[in-house]
C-alpha cells in the first residue's frame, strides 16, 4: 500500500511538472493558431520557424552568448579558483564572500545594477553588454564547481612536481588542470544552461534591437505567442535531452572504467 502511495505521489509530481511542457509540444504540431482547439496535425510551424528571421536571429544570439559566456566564464573562473585556493586564509575568505554576493543578489537587482553601469559609462546596450553580463553571473558558478576539486587534490603534488624540476606552467597544465577537469566541465555546462535560460538579466542589459530568445518571447507575450516559438522550444528541449543522455552515458562509462 505504502509503496503504491509513494509511486503514485511521485507520478503526480512529475505529471504536474510535465503537463505544461507536453501541452506546449502538442501545440507545436497543431494546425491552427488556437491554444485550446486541436485542428489537425501539421508541421507548418516547424517550416515557419526556419523562415522566421527574427527567431533564427534570436536563436543565434542566445546560442553564441551561451557558448562565449560559458567559455570566458570557465577560463576566468578556473584561473580565479586556482588563485583563490593558493591564497592565505584571510584574502581567501574575502574573495569567497565577494563570489557569493552575485549569487545571493536577486536577478532583477543584478540586471538593474549592470544596466546602471552601462548607462553611467555610456557603453551602448546590445550584444557585448549582454555577453559581459552573462560572463559576470556565470563566473561564481564555475568557481564554486572547481573549488571542491582543488580542495580534494593532494596539497603536495604541485610542489612535488616543482621539486622534480617541472616549471610552474608545466605543473599547472599537467598536475593541477587534469585533477580539476571534472569541476571545470561541470562549471562550463552549468554556465551554458544558465545563460541559455536567462531572461531577467538579459532583459535589462540589451537593447530592443538585439534580442535573445527570452527577450523575444517576452516582447511577443502580450501579442500572443506564435506556435512557431513552441516549435523552436520543442526542438531545443529534445536537443538538450539528447545532450543530457550523451553526458550521462559518458559519466557512466567513466564510472565503469574506474
Amino acid at each position, binding site marked *: 500500500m505504502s509503496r503504491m502511495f509513494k509511486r503514485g505521489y511521485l507520478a503526480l509530481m512529475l505529471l504536474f511538472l510535465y503537463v505544461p511542457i507536453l501541452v506546449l509540444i502538442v501545440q507545436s504540431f497543431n494546425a491552427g493558431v488556437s491554444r485550446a482547439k486541436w485542428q489537425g496535425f501539421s508541421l507548418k510551424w516547424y517550416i515557419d520557424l526556419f523562415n522566421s528571421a527574427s527567431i533564427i536571429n534570436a536563436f543565434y544570439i542566445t546560442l553564441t552568448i551561451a557558448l562565449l559566456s560559458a567559455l570566458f566564464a570557465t577560463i576566468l573562473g578556473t584561473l580565479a579558483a586556482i588563485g583563490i585556493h593558493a591564497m592565505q586564509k584571510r584574502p581567501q575568505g574575502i574573495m569567497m564572500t565577494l563570489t557569493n554576493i552575485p549569487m545571493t543578489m*536577486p536577478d532583477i537587482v543584478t540586471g538593474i545594477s549592470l544596466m546602471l553601469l552601462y548607462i553611467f559609462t555610456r557603453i551602448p546596450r546590445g550584444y557585448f553588454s549582454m555577453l559581459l553580463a552573462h560572463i559576470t553571473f556565470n563566473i561564481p558558478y564555475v568557481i564554486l564547481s572547481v573549488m571542491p576539486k582543488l580542495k580534494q587534490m593532494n596539497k603536495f603534488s604541485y610542489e612535488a612536481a616543482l621539486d622534480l624540476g617541472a616549471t610552474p606552467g608545466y605543473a599547472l597544465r599537467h598536475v593541477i588542470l587534469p585533477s580539476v577537469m571534472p569541476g571545470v566541465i561541470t562549471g562550463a555546462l552549468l554556465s551554458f544552461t544558465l545563460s541559455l535560460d536567462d531572461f531577467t538579466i538579459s532583459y535589462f542589459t540589451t537593447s530592443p534591437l*538585439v534580442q535573445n530568445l527570452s527577450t523575444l518571447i517576452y516582447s511577443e507575450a502580450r501579442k500572443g505567442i506564435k506556435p512557431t516559438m513552441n516549435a523552436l522550444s520543442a526542438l531545443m528541449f529534445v536537443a538538450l535531452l539528447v545532450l543530457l543522455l550523451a553526458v550521462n552515458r559518458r559519466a557512466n562509462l567513466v564510472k565503469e572504467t574506474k
Partner: protein
Amino acid sequence: MSAMAFPPWAVWLMLLGLAAFAGMIALSIRRNRGIRRTLFAFPYGLWIVVFTLIPLLLIGYYAFTDRSGAFTLDNFRTFWDSNFEMRKQMLDMGFDPADLGIARGNVNMDTLIYSLWMAFLCTLICLAMGYPAALFMADRNFKLGSTLVVLFIIPMWMNFLLRTIAWMSLLEDNGLINTLLGALGLPRMQLMYNSRAVLLGMVYNYLPFMVFPIYNALSKQDPKLSEAAMDLGANAALTFFKVTLPLSLPGVISGITMVFMPSVTTFFIPRVLGGGNTEMFGDLIERTFLSADNWNLGSALSLIMMVLILLSLTTLRKFDPEGEGGTMI
C-alpha cells in the same frame, strides 16, 4: 553594428587592465622564477570590482540622490508613502494635502507585503509538496530514485517564460482544464487572473529548487542511523521525526532559501497569469525603472529588496551555520 561599439575610453580601460595583469605576471616570473598562483585570481578580482561592486555602488548612489544628483532620503520616503512627491509639491504651493483628501499612499508598501506573503505561501507549498517527493526518491529500496531526480531537472531546461505561458493554455476560460470540466458536465471555473494562478506559476517554477537540496541531504544520510532507531524500538513515525527529519534540516534550509529568494522578486509570472492587482515587487521595480523612468526610486526599492534578502539569509544561516545543505551543485 553600432550597438557593438564600445566608447574608446572603455577599450583603453580594458587594455590597461590586461597590461597590468601581464605586467604583474612578468614581474612575478622575474622575482620567483615562476608564476605566483594567487595572481591567477587577479583578472577575476578586477572583473568583480567593475561588474559587481561598482554597479552595486551605483544603485546605492541613485537610491540616495534625486534627479539633480543632490543627496536626499525622499526615495525612501516615497517607498513608505507613494503620494509623498505629490504631497510635497502641494505643501510647497501652500496647500495642506490633508484638506484635499490626499492621504498617505500605500501602493509600494502593500506590494512589498503582498510579495512577501506570496513568497511565504510559495515556499510553504513547495516544502509540503517537495519534502515527501525528496523523501520517497531518497529511499534506498527505490531503485529509480536517482533517475527521477534527473526528471525533476529536465523541465527547467524549457524556457521559463514559455513554461509559464503554457500554463495559460491550461487555465484559460476556454483552456484545457475548463474544456475538460465542460465535457464532464461540470461548471467552468475562472482559473486565471488571480493570486492563485500566480501562486501556481511560482510553485511550478520553483519546486525543483526545493526538491534537490532536500534530496541531497536525505541521500547522504547513513541508513544505519534510522535502522538503529528502529532496532531500539522507535516506530516509523518516531524514527522520522527524531532522526531523519532533524538530519535533513540543512537541506530544508537551503531549499527554503533557494525558493524564497527568487519568489520575492518574481517577475513576469504575475504579469502573465495574474490580474490587475497581483503586481509583485519585482514587477514594481521593473516598472519604476523602465516605465516610470524613475531610477532613483527604483534603486531605493532594489536596495530595500537586497537588505531584506540579506536579513533573511543571515537568519536562515543561523539554522545551518556550516552551510551543509549546499546548493544544487
